[in-house]
C-alpha cells in the first residue's frame, strides 16, 4: 500500500513538473511562429539575431517605468521578442524573398490575420496578428524585404496593444515595428 502511494505521488509530481516546463516553453504559445530553417542564409554578409525572453523583458520593464510607464506596461505583457535580420545581396535575394512568401503562405492558411501589406518596387512588408478567444492580440509577426537593404522577420509573443507597440519599436529601434502605427490598417 505504501509503495503504491509513493508511486502515485511520484507520478503526480512528474506530471506537474512536465506541465510546468511546458507552460514555460514559449514555443508552445499560440503567438509563437516558427519561421523555419535559416541555415542556408547564415553565410549572408550581415546577419543579426535578437532573442529577448520574458525574464529580460520583465527586467527591462522595471527599469523603463521611470521614464515611460507605457513602455513598462507593454514589456510586462510580453513573453518573447525575437528578430532575424539579413543583409540582402545577389546571393540570397531570391531565397529571402521566397522565405517572406513562405511565411505569408503559412500564416494566411491559419488563424493569423494579415493587417498590413505594402508592396512597392523596392519594398515588401507584411504585418500579421493572432488573437485569442477574447479578441486580445497574443502574437505579432512582421516580415519586411527591402531590395537594397535588409530582410527582417520579427515575432512578438504575449499581450500586445497595437496602439502602443509602435512605441516599443521606436524605443528599441526594431525594424519595421515602429512603422506599424504609420501604416493604415487593412491591406494596401
Amino acid at each position, binding site marked *: 500500500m505504501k509503495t503504491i502511494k509513493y508511486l502515485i505521488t511520484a507520478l503526480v509530481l512528474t506530471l506537474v513538473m512536465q506541465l510546468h516546463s511546458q507552460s514555460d516553453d514559449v514555443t508552445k504559445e499560440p503567438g509563437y511562429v516558427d519561421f523555419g530553417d535559416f541555415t542556408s542564409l547564415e553565410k549572408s554578409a550581415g*546577419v543579426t539575431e535578437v532573442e529577448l525572453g520574458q525574464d529580460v523583458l520583465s527586467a527591462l520593464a522595471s*527599469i523603463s517605468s521611470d521614464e515611460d510607464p507605457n513602455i513598462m506596461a507593454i514589456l510586462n505583457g510580453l513573453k518573447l521578442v525575437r528578430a532575424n535580420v539579413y543583409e540582402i545581396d545577389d546571393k540570397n535575394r531570391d531565397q529571402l524573398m521566397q522565405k517572406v512568401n513562405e511565411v505569408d503562405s503559412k500564416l494566411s492558411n491559419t488563424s493569423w490575420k494579415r493587417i498590413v501589406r505594402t508592396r512597392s518596387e523596392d519594398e515588401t512588408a507584411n504585418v500579421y496578428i493572432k488573437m485569442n478567444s477574447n479578441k486580445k492580440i497574443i502574437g505579432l509577426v512582421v516580415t519586411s524585404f527591402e531590395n537594397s537593404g535588409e530582410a527582417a522577420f520579427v515575432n512578438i509573443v504575449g499581450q500586445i496593444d497595437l496602439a502602443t507597440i509602435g512605441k516599443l519599436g521606436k524605443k*528599441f*529601434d526594431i525594424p519595421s515595428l515602429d512603422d506599424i502605427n504609420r501604416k493604415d490598417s487593412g491591406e494596401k
Partner: protein
Amino acid sequence: MKQNKSIIVIIAPILLLFLTGCIGVNRQFSQVKDKIMGELGSDYRTEFQFSVGPALIHVSSWLVDMSADEEYVDDMMREISSVQVGIYNKIDENKDKANFSTLIALDDHMKKSGWKYIVRTADGDELTAVYISNDPEEVLKKMYVISLEDEKLVIVEVNGNLQKVISYALKEKKFKINSEL
C-alpha cells in the same frame, strides 16, 4: 622594525590588487574562454588578460566623472561591480574564417554552461554575441560579450546591476537592437 615596515609596504599593494580582483581572470572566465576557442578551432595567443574589481572601477569612475561630458557614463560605471577582459590573437592564419555558423555552434556550448544569447551578429568579418545567464536569479547581473574580428578575439565579462547599465544605454544612446543592420 625597518624590515617589518618594508615587508608591509611590499605585501600591502599585492594584497590590495588581489582583493580587488585586479590580477588574472577567474576559473569561470577561463572555462568560457576555452569553450569559445575550442569552437573556433584555432589557436590563440593571449595578448591581454585581466580583471578589474570594484575598487579599481570605483577609482576609474572618479576619473571618468572628471573627464566625461555625459553624466551617464559615470552613473553606469557605478552599477558595474567587476569586469574581466581577455584579448587574444589568432596564431594559425591558414584556418577557415569563422562565420555566423560558428556563433550558432558556440551557442550549444554556452547553453550547456547556463548562458543564453540576447543578440548575435555577423557583419563581414566581425562576429559579436552577447550572453546573459539562464538562471532567473542572475538575469542581467552578469553578461558576456564575445567579439571576433579578423584575427583578434575579445571576451568581456561584466558583473553588476546590468539593468541600470542597459537603462542608461537605452536612455542616452537609444540602444539599437538592430545596430548591425
